[in-house]
């Protein structure tokens, strides 16, 4: 009667492969020769001390930055330069370290914006909000309501997000990313600034998203406890280089990782 404990992850196909990626801003090397892969359906954590290049890595993945060297293969398609909009259309959604919502808009409207890529009727039709456009909007609304229910934010449906506490804003942002029905979800510090209870809730949601929608998730997180509990595999960056890659247990034992996090005796 118990849930399956630690299901064995089959060797699943690679959804995204990062190969020898380097990124430099002028003389500053943000990433140096980083390679790793994200498999379909897994939760992949990217960890590392401050300034290790974690957010830069996410920015490369969703096309916001273009790697100076190396390549990123997403769904078998290799590319070097891609615009964020193309990444979004390709099925990559993300949330941001500092919440980036439309503060004056309601929760519902914010999540609806996540559907805008999926709206097919043109601007003109949408302005009329009549006939086919209305029907399409109703369809999208259904998806959004599903997400609102999933994230248990019914009570703030009509509340402007600027008025919400931080923990809830994070949840709304996750909702907006989910509205895109992404194949790959990038979460940049989803639990930053949360208290213990909010963290537990958010962990639950991340696991549920992964299980329920089968979404592949790559997340950056500082809370080691959370990372170890949530993720299937962890990649560790330090000063823009990959220093370890493996299951949470393996990574925890890795000397380089321990050194990076705890410091070594000189």
């Amino acid at each position, binding site marked *: *009667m*118990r849930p399956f404990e630690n299901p064995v992850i089959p060797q699943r196909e690679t959804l995204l492969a990062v190969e020898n990626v380097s990124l430099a801003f002028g003389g500053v090397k943000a990433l140096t020769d980083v390679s790793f892969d994200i498999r379909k359906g897994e939760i992949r954590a990217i960890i590392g001390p401050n300034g290790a290049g974690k957010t830069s890595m996410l920015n490369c993945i969703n096309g916001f930055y273009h790697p100076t060297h190396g390549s990123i293969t997403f769904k078998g398609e290799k590319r070097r330069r891609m615009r964020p909009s193309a990444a979004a259309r390709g099925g990559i959604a993300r949330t941001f370290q500092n919440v980036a919502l439309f503060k004056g808009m309601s929760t519902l409207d914010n999540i609806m914006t996540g559907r805008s890529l999926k709206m097919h009727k043109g601007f003109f039709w949408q302005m009329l909000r009549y006939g086919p456009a209305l029907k399409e909007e109703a369809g999208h609304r259904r998806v959004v309501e599903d997400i609102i229910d999933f994230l248990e934010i*019914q009570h703030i449906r009509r509340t402007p997000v600027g008025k919400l506490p931080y923990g809830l804003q994070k949840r709304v942002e996750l909702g907006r990313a989910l509205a895109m029905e992404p194949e790959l979800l990038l979460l940049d510090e989803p639990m930053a600034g949360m208290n213990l209870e909010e963290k537990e809730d958010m962990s639950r949601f991340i696991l549920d998203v992964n299980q329920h929608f089968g979404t592949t998730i790559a997340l950056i997180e500082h809370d080691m406890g959370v990372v170890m509990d949530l993720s299937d595999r962890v990649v560790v960056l330090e000063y823009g280089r990959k220093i370890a890659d493996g299951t949470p247990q393996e990574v925890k034992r890795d000397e380089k990782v321990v050194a990076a996090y705890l410091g070594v005796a000189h």
Partner: protein
Amino acid sequence: MAVTAREDTFPKLIALNAQIRPARTAFRHKDFGIWQSWNWHDVHENVRAFAAGLQTLGLKRGDKLAILGSNRPRLYWSMAAAQWLGAIPIPVYSDSVAEEIAYVLAHAEVTHAVVQDQEQVDKLLSVIDQLPTLVHILYDKERGLRDYDHTRLHAIDSLIEQGRELCRQDATSSAIEHELQSGSGADLAIILYTSGTTGRPKGVMLTHDNVVKAAEIGCSFDKLTDNDEILAYLPIAWVGDHIFSYAQGILAGFCVNCPESPETVVEDRREIGSTYVFAPPRIFENLLTLTMVRMEDASPLKRKMFRYFLDLANRVGEKILNGDADVSALDRILYGLGNALVYAPLRNRFGFTKIKVGYTAGEAIGPELFRFYRSIGVNLKQLYGQTEAAVYVTMHPDGEIRADTVGRPAPQIEIRIDENGEVLYRSPGVFVGYYKDDEKTAATKTSDGFVRSGDAGFFEPGGHLKIIDRAKDVGRLTDGSLFPPKYIENKLKFYANIKEAVAFGDHRNAVTCFINIDLVAVGNWAERHNITYASYQELAGHPLVYDMIARHVDEVNRSLSMEPGMGGAQIQRFLILHKELDADDGELTRTQKVRRGFIAERYAPLIVALYDGTRETDVSTEVTFEDGRKGTISAHVHIRDMKIYPVTPTPLENAA
């Protein structure tokens, strides 16, 4: 119109509703932002299929089925489906921690459990070792459960679907029909575990006859019909919800509306506009506090208008509602204007626009609070009830509404007061006994069928019953004066700034008191006065907060000094507790009543300090979080001395 049952069990009544009012909406549930609805035909069909499905899972006559979750149609249907098969549904308070739930489920030897979602499934799985009899768990909401082992875990929807398939076969269909007809009014309908202010919860057994009769009393008293609407939002394990949202809904055929989530209740009630409302005083209090807090932020003009018309309502509103003649024409016109500008919008805010009758019970309600709602045109009444009576003991008849009494004996109910002041009652709704506890049953039920309520009270000259406290709680100070703790606490709690109060004084030389401030009200006050605070604890310890609370305590003392027999119970010293009293720490019951004895033990050092003259003391307390983990908080608590008013000596007649 008196509602009389033509059928003797609830599943039969549902079948009857499906015949006589098939198209009338029976249940609504706001889901995905839309009110989904089911008419009586659908409900009958679903309950029947649900019963057939439960039968395939081995549920049979006499088995127990536990129900854990908030108010959702499928959970209500599971009660009816279990009753259909002659099994006994046992709703459990879903916010209880796993250990408490385990006790009830083990005590009742539950074989099947119907739960709301993953949270409840996990809770049950965490104590599954203590529940050897539990075979199957059914859930309403799938989120997060997809990867669980489904050999003994089932989705309600798929079970109903399966049952529907089975019912298409003639053999099953007639077998299910046979099950329905084999039920009778004398069968056990439900076991409701009372939260118990002391000790372990007790299982109150009620038959279909008990519940049907009790539901009838209320339906005919307030002339409920199938045009009524109710919002089901109180715990399903509570007898009130069972009678109002389940029994009366099915009996009168009215619609039961289930809110989207506990946080959306106010909004949802507004959308539905329920005609029949039931709420404990604290809900009415919260609504009012929220409104008052918001009004503080309104523009000066609006505030002025609000104040003016509320004063007017306070003066004449109740008289108008009661139909009194001595209201001047000018006042009536002004009240009409106030209705357009203030009262109607307020009622709309509260979701009381279409309200026919509203009840409050469970705790005493503050007279100001009570009058406020009545004065803006809400027909609010009080009733006094108990799980053992299937709710109804006394209630306010129309036109005889008073804040300080609980009304006259309800129809078909006999009441007597015994020599020590305890209220005893007998009615058709009176329970069979406590499940597996003959000793307690014998102690509660007299040989002639009266039930000891455990409450001390007296009939006042007008024939209304007045409850003063739990009979065993009414104590004496060492100087012999009467000490009714709850009476004192309620007086304190009527102030919006005070959320809870716990009074001590039995066998002591003076009355002292713990106070919990209301974080919303006091927090807002602090904001307006530029008082910064980081936590409840800090705000609670603030000297200005102490000053404010001291003013309230002083007013209570003055009012006690003026009441017959209560003057000796004035509060001599008080302190503001450093943490909020919480059911998770065992300080409150699940229905939010204070467990005085437990609190006294837990905070023994503070009580010592209250009586030894200390002005301040340190304390540290263990707290339990909702997931069962524990932590400690410590604080430095101050104690205030109060002025005692001289007493006008009049003896209190009749009371304990």
